[in-house]
């Protein structure tokens, strides 16, 4: 077994070393180029691999998806925009679109806000590493793990029975003797599921924002404090503007994760009880119902949903580039 293990790990390290070695060799050789050639070579060699991977791994599949979205379930009959009319005409999909919208608005904002508050507060505490690690820990737990954890939070039992769901038990400890069946309570259940997302992602937001706050030059906060800014005013007038671009990055990242979210929904409700979201519905259409056309159309909608986000970030980035 150890022989087997060392062969596997040896191969892996060999692959990494080979990969880095080839890159270094290429860099070394290309480093001899001069003038315009050097610049072109740099663009080609440094950017080329990423662009190629993206083309093969994402652009081509995306194009294929768009193409498939115009066809029927097994791609044998051209439907035009039939799958899109289905998506906009189906009342189930309306619910899905509404839920997706709720998710991408609420979850990222709450995650980022909470992460920001924690970043501000935690940095000033003794033993911050412990707090940070504990809050960050959900990031390290797989979705399978997370869904088990939350199953034992939201599980429902008849109030007369011993409870296995923590939330119900807490309600009962506090005197609410008839808590609802959480996961069935629409639209509350959507928010309960969002809490899982927030629970997982807040650590990420906190860690990144905390690093950004620490990077604010001390003299700026110092000057503001001397000017009399305290607490909230310091936060609103100095801290927030200084880390604005990081906030946007965190918000964007969490939002995109949210859009692609399907594990939580899949394991917690399977998309039932009015909690379905676009990514999971797309997965179902593609892999349970084998309807490539509808799945493709939903994927395109998912893509379109992110266009405003992309546009906003593009504008921000351009502004930043300009200032630079």
């Amino acid at each position, binding site marked *: *077994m150890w022989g087997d*293990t060392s062969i*596997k*790990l040896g*191969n*892996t390290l*060999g*692959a990494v*070393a*080979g*990969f*880095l070695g080839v890159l270094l060799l290429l860099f070394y050789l290309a*480093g001899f*180029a001069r003038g315009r050639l*050097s610049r072109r070579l*740099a*663009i080609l060699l440094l*950017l080329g*691999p*990423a662009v190629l991977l*993206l083309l*093969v*791994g*994402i652009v081509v*599949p995306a194009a294929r998806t768009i193409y498939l979205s115009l066809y029927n379930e097994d791609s044998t009959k051209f439907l035009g925009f039939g799958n899109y009319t289905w998506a906009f005409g189906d009342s189930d999909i309306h619910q899905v679109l509404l839920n997706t919208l709720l998710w991408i608005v609420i979850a990222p904002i709450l995650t980022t806000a909470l992460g920001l*508050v924690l970043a501000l*507060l935690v940095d*000033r505490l003794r033993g911050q590493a412990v707090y*940070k*690690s*504990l*809050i960050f820990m*959900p*990031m*390290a*737990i*797989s979705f*399978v793990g997370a869904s*088990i*954890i939350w199953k*034992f939070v939201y599980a429902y039992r008849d109030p007369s029975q*011993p409870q*296995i769901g*923590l939330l119900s038990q807490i309600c009962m400890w506090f005197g609410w003797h008839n808590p609802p069946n959480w996961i069935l309570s629409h639209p509350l259940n959507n928010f309960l599921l969002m809490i899982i997302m927030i629970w997982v992602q807040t650590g990420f937001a906190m860690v*990144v924002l905390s690093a950004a706050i620490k*990077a604010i030059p*001390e003299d700026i906060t110092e000057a503001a404090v001397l000017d009399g800014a*305290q*607490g909230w005013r*310091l936060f609103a007038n100095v801290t927030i503007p200084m880390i604005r671009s990081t906030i946007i*990055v965190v918000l964007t990242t969490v939002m995109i994760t949210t859009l692609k979210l399907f594990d939580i929904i899949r394991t917690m409700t399977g998309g039932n009880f009015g909690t379905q979201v676009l990514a999971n519905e*797309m*997965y179902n259409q*593609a892999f349970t119902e084998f309807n490539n056309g509808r799945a493709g159309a939903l*994927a395109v909608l998912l*893509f379109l949903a992110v266009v405003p986000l*992309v546009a906003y970030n*593009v504008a921000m980035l*351009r502004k930043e580039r300009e200032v*630079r």
Partner: protein
Amino acid sequence: MAMLTRTERKRSEPARTAPTRTGVRRALSSPLSTVAVLLVTVVWTVPSLGLLVTSLRPEQDVAQTGWWDFFAHPHLTLANYHDVLFNGGFGVSDGLMPYLVNSLAITVPATIFPIVLASMAAYVLAWIPFKGSDTIFFVFFALQVVPLQMALVPLLQLFSGGAHIGSLTIFPAVGMGGSYAPVWIAHTMFAMPLAVFLLHNFIAQLPRDLIEAARVDGASHFRVFRSVVLPLATPALASFAIFQFLWVWNDLLVGLTFTGGAPESAPMPSRLAQLSGSFGDHWEILTAGAFVSVVIPLVVFFSLQRYFVRGLLAGSVKG
């Protein structure tokens, strides 16, 4: 220019910051915030504590009483961990070990490859402007949202159908890794948009003069990238590394699809999923498995954590 001077100050005066920071800290802190953080930490930890306790309880108890009942009736067992770690399937006698090895063998390259390639791309997009470079960057950004499920079939076709050679030219070490290569490549591809986006944001804000001085000194772009950009970008690389590591480590879908799930190459989550039984969630086993799989990411997080905190000063202290 304002930004540059800011960076300059940041780099130049670390020694002075310590005393003033405490001053500011005092100005901002209150017992209330301590309580608030404590509260959030507890709320955040309790569900995980539930996971840990559940993993230590016997099967019957798990289904019948809440995990907090454990405190009233402590009834511990390590049987679940024993099942997860040592009860191998018939084909695999070493329990979880081979899968753990596979997970490592998949995760390490699948973390390093995208980071290196993405930081290369991010450097070009941030520092070598050319016609269309903005467009390429925005395309990268926008493609983050393409669900990877959509790419599974075309990619499998690519890997299994002979265009494999196309990937060989990208990663010349493919042949050595054997059947891990498709997983590495797939993870690298799927990580690329987010990696380029995050690393670009950081690399674009590196001090311009450091990079230009090296350029004028005659360093090629490759040299600048290797000797100036990569060291400066260490904090960003470390934070992205953590997220990529966690993502690959916990991934089931890509690993299962591109290894076919065989014990020779499949990662741990596919084994854990298989341990959970055909007709049911054996929660006690899944919870134990979840805890086993959390250990390594936590170690990674703890060992890389200081890079987050140190920010731009990363290298200067140690040298």
